[in-house]
C-alpha cells in the first residue's frame, strides 16, 4: 500500500477510536464494567450490615441452589430459592403463551390492513409499550384490586357479594406481565408477517387447503421465526421482572428479581444477591442466543 493510503487508513482508525470513546467509556463505567465487580462479589462473604468481607468463598454460589441445615449439617436443596426459580420460569412461560394467543391474531390483523394504515395500527400497539411500565402496572392494579373496577362492577351487577381476591396472587402477576409485554410479542410476528407474500395463501387455497390448513401449513411455518423471536423477547424481561411482581405480587409472589433485591435489602447477603444476579444473567444470555438464531433465520430469504 502506498504511503498516502496508509496514512489515511491510520487517520481513519484514530477517528473511529475517538468517535467511539465517549459511548464506550460511559458503558464500561456504568453498564458493563460493574458486572465484573458483581462477579467478584459473588465469591466473597457477606458483611454483617450489608456489603462484603474480603474473604474468598464459594458459599454464595452454593447457596443459590442448596443449603446446609443449621442444626444437623444436613445438605438439602434451598427450597425457598427453587420455588422462586420455578415461579419465575412458570410465569414467564405462561406469559409467553398468553401473549402469543392474543398477539398472533393481532399481528395478523395489522399485517392484513392496507399498507398505509398498518403503521398507524403499529403505533397504537407501541404507544402503551413506550409509556411508563410502573404506570401500566398501576393501571392493572387499580383494575383488579378488591375495591377496583372489576370487583366493583361485578358486585354492582350482583354476580358476587364478596370481592374476588385477585391482587397479590400469581394470577395478578401473570395478567400484569401479559399486559405489559404483549407488544414485544406482536412486534416481531408483525415484522415477519409484513414480508409474507399473500400469493402463497392464494396458492394454498388453490391447492384445496381450508382456512385453518392454510394458517397451519402455509402461514405459520413461514412466520415461525417471528413467533420464536417474540416468545424469547417476552420470556427474557419476564424472567428478570421486578416492578410487576413487587406491585401486583405484593411481596408474596416473589420472582427472581425480588429475591435478588431482598439479598441487598432486608437479608443483607450481597454475595448471594450477586450470585443470583449472575445466574439470571446467564439464563437470559442463553435465551438471547436462541433469539439471535431465530432472527438470523428470519433474515434468510423465504417465499
Amino acid at each position, binding site marked *: *500500500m*502506498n*504511503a*498516502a*493510503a496508509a496514512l*489515511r*487508513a491510520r487517520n481513519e482508525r484514530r477517528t473511529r477510536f475517538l468517535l467511539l470513546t465517549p459511548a464506550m467509556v460511559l458503558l464500561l463505567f456504568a453498564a458493563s464494567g460493574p458486572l465484573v465487580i458483581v462477579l467478584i462479589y459473588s465469591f466473597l462473604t457477606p458483611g454483617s450490615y450489608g456489603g462484603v468481607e474480603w474473604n474468598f468463598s464459594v458459599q454464595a454460589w452454593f447457596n443459590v441452589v442448596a443449603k446446609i441445615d443449621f442444626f444437623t449439617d444436613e445438605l438439602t436443596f434451598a427450597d425457598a430459592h427453587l420455588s422462586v426459580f420455578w415461579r419465575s420460569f412458570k410465569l414467564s412461560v405462561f406469559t409467553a403463551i398468553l401473549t402469543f394467543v392474543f398477539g398472533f391474531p393481532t399481528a395478523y390483523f395489522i399485517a392484513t390492513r392496507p399498507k398505509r394504515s398498518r403503521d398507524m395500527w403499529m403505533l397504537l400497539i407501541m404507544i402503551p409499550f413506550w409509556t411508563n411500565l410502573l404506570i401500566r402496572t398501576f393501571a392493572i392494579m387499580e383494575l383488579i384490586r378488591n375495591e377496583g373496577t372489576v370487583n366493583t362492577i361485578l358486585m354492582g351487577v350482583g354476580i358476587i357479594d364478596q370481592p374476588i381476591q385477585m391482587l397479590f396472587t400469581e394470577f395478578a402477576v401473570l395478567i400484569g406481565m401479559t399486559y405489559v409485554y404483549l407488544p414485544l410479542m406482536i412486534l416481531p410476528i408483525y415484522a415477519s408477517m409484513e414480508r409474507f407474500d399473500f400469493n402463497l395463501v392464494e396458492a394454498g387455497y388453490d391447492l384445496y387447503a381450508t382456512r385453518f390448513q392454510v394458517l397451519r401449513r402455509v402461514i405459520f411455518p413461514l412466520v415461525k421465526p417471528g413467533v420464536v423471536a417474540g416468545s424469547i423477547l417476552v420470556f427474557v424481561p419476564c424472567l428478570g421482572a421486578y416492578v410487576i411482581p413487587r406491585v401486583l405480587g405484593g411481596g408474596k409472589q416473589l420472582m427472581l428479581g425480588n429475591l435478588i433485591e431482598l439479598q441487598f435489602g432486608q437479608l443483607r447477603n450481597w454475595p448471594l444477591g450477586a450470585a443470583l444476579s449472575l445466574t439470571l444473567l446467564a439464563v437470559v444470555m442463553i435465551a438471547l442466543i436462541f433469539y439471535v438464531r431465530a432472527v438470523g433465520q428470519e433474515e434468510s430469504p423465504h417465499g
Partner: protein
Amino acid sequence: MIEINGVTKIFGGGSDAFTALDNLSVTIDSNEFFTLLGPSGCGKTTLLRVIAGFIDPTQGTVQLDGENLVEQPPYKRPVNTVFQSYALFPHLTVAQNIAFGLQMLGRPKSEISSTVDEMLTLVQMAPMADRKTSEISGGQQQRVALARALAPRPKVLLLDEPLSALDFKLRKEMQLELKRLQHETGITFIFVTHDQEEALTMSDRIAVMNAGTIRQIGGPRDIYDHPAERFVADFIGDTNFIEVELVNTSADTARIRLISGKEIDARANPDGPKAGSKVTLAVRPEHATLVDEGEALLPGTLSDVVYFGTDTHYHVALDGGGGDFVVRRQNQPDMAQSRQTGARVGVTFPANVGQVLRD
C-alpha cells in the same frame, strides 16, 4: 492528460482476496470522450473510483497533467463525478446543489451565482432552479447531477453509468446531449458503461475491460470492425466464430483456409499467430450474405429463420461440422421470405471483412 500507471486494486485479503484491477495502465488525452466498457464486475467502476479518490489503489499511480492524484484526498482532486444514482443532496434545491462545489471551494458569491445560472442554462434547467431535487423527474435529476459536476470546471468529468436509470427514449436523447456538452466545455469525459451501443455512439475512444484488465483500446469503428480477441468480439455486437487455418500472414492481413477448403483474405494483428496454425475467425452477421450453395464460401443447410422486425436472422448449419452461422439481412417492405428451412444454401463474405482473433 491522465496517465494511469500499473494500477492494481485487491479487495480483502487471504483466500477472500479479489483482484478488481490487475496492473492496469492507460493514458487518456485531454478533451477526449473516453469510455470504459465491460461487463459488471470487470473493474470499470473501481477504476473510476480510483481516479475520483474513493478507492485507494493497492499499487500504481494516477497522474493528472504530471501530478500524482493518489496522494490527494477526493476533495482536493480537480475531478468531479456524476454518480450512477445521481447522489443529489435531498435537503438542497436544484440551484443549491449546483452551487455546492463552488461554495466548498470558497468562490465569491457573485461568481457562484453567475456560474450556477450558466450551468442551469447549459442543461436547460433554469425554470426548475428552486425546486427540491425530489420534485423533479429522473431525466431532470440527471441534468442537475451533470450541471453540479461541471460547475466547478473540473479538468476531468467522471460519469458512472449515468444513463442506466433512464428509459430508452430519454437515454437516446441524453447520449446526444452528453456528446454536445463535452464538445462545448472541452472537459475530458471518462464514461463508464456496460452498454456497448452507448459506448459506440458517444466515445472518441473505448477501452474494453474484462477481469480487471483492458482487453482492447480503440475508436468505436476500430473496436467493432476489428476486435482483437474473442472476448471483445463476443461482448460487442453479435459475431460468428469459425475455425480456420492460417495459410500465411503479412503485416495486418492474413490468407486463411476455411473448412470448405476455400481461401480468402482476412484482417489480422501483426503480432498474431503464425502461418499453419488453427485460429478463430470472427465475422459479423451483417457482413455476410446468404447465397446459393454453388457460389458459397461456406455451404450448409438453412436451419432456422427468425424475424426481428428491422431485420431477419438466417441460421445456417455449416457443412463439415462448422457449427451455426448467422446471417443478418435488413428487412424491406413486403419482402417475401425467399428460402425455406431445410433448403441447401451457403454463406459468403468479402475479403478483408473477417478478423483473425488472437485467442
